[in-house]
């Protein structure tokens, strides 16, 4: 049997009358996950936007571009990184800053390390991580200490930190920018273009006249 549907697309698929249960889906059928970060405008900070499932970082980039920067979600820069390459600090309790846990002596005696790391701060539970900047360190732990030195004096308590080795991130480059330079006439895909008040008013007037 093929399923007759109101949807011509479905009718064309000639869906069989499944009598057997579907085969179990194998683990990793949907691939590993990547974390995506977007800078929406040139003068805005880079922020965490969400996850994509993808077989590799090139595809993760393709997918994140449409899932997180389509239409109204403007984009100036896009970064993706495999989730396993993100080092996560513990969360602090009751709004205290993670940097309070690092004593100042450790900072004073610390020299720059060999590898670049990117630092992301969480200021509020339930919100997203924001990019703080780059540090040079020899390990993720050391990177956090370096981060306190460079980015720890902004006043806002940092509740959680993500540390990512720079080499693990796929960055959009200058050359990619054109892909976000697209038709501006997309208002028909935004709420702002739908104004029905005039039609309702006209309808009411006509009906009252009757």
């Amino acid at each position, binding site marked *: 049997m093929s*399923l007759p549907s109101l949807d011509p697309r479905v009718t064309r698929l000639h869906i069989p009358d499944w009598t057997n249960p579907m085969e179990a889906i194998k683990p990793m059928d*949907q691939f590993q996950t990547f974390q995506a970060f977007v800078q929406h405008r040139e003068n805005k900070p880079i922020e965490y936007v969400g996850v994509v499932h993808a077989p590799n970082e090139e595809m993760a980039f393709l997918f994140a571009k449409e899932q997180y920067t389509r*239409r109204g979600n403007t984009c100036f820069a896009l970064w993706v990184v495999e989730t396993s390459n993100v080092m996560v600090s513990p*969360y602090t309790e009751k709004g205290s800053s993670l940097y309070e846990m690092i004593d100042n002596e450790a900072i004073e005696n610390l020299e720059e390390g060999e590898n670049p790391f990117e630092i992301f701060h969480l200021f509020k539970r339930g919100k*997203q991580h924001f990019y703080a900047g780059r540090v040079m360190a020899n390990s993720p732990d050391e990177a956090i200490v370096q981060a306190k030195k460079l980015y720890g004096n902004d006043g806002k308590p940092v509740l959680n930190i993500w540390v990512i080795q720079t080499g693990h991130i796929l960055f959009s480059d200058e050359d990619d920018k054109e892909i976000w330079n697209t038709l501006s006439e997309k208002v028909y895909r935004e709420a702002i273009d739908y104004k029905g008040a005039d039609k309702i008013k006209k*309808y009411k007037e006509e009906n009252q006249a009757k």
Partner: protein
Amino acid sequence: MYGGGTIFEPTKLDALKDEDPIKLAEFEARIERGEKIEPSDWMPKLYRKQLVRMIEQHGHSEIIGSLPEGTWITRAPGFKRKLALMAKVQDEVGHAQLLYSAAETLGKTREEMIEDLISGKSKYSNIFNYPAITWADSCFISWLVDAGAIVNQLANSKGSYGPYCRALERICAEEAFHLKYGHHCVIHLATGTPTQRKMMQEALNRWWAPMMHFFGPPDTMSVHTETLMKWKVKMATNDDMRQQFLDMYVMKIREIGLTIPDPNLRKDPETGKWIYTEPDWEEFKRVINGDGPCNKERLAVRRMAEERGAWVRRALAAPKKEYVTPLA
């Protein structure tokens, strides 16, 4: 889009007896303070389980919900409608992606969720088991089903689980476009030619009962949800959401000359509550348990999509990679 009719598992009174009382108290205090729970925090097993269930059902509702409207993708009349409908259905797929990702942070993989959807083990919003017979049905869905979903989603966005809140923030922003687009479509039909008006009224007649079902059974019939409400998993009762929906939309439906097919529908001036004919809850149960006009088709299409895409995923798979649960 998604209704309030989440099917929570009945909570047993002793469900918390194995939990560490100190940790439980800290957890509840955190919620009490208005702080969000993040994936690595300690949480009671029941919280995790019910959240997975709710977010997963929400995700399933988005992906299955893309089908009745998708019915009209190839037939949308005119450029603006065509482009908007394509974008709207795409957003629903996008919402499913966001929600599955949020549910994954609680430890259930996307593979498991897809499997449970297709096998019928997991539920999705019951309203999508009804067919979109004409273009007007798709307009009804875009406006009023989305409107109902927004009532629920706005409530849920104030819930306690961080990743779900983050997903809902984005989702609610996009739903604003869906709602306006849907309203615009309905206004055009309802104030249009006699053929268009008839088409719209008939769609309203078909969809009113499923719409009333959408928020779930009356609270007197629902399983105990006090714990879930205390933990800010469930944010509003089914009846409250239904009342809120009626408050916001009955006038908007009537002002464009449409007749809601419930002669008893009126606002009680004393209580300020809407009085309406109870929809057939037996039918709701029957449909949610598999015996609706489109249950079979919806799942068959999902299965077909998974099976047709299997070779693509097999080919792209890098077998040495290991799955890592997303962080937030």
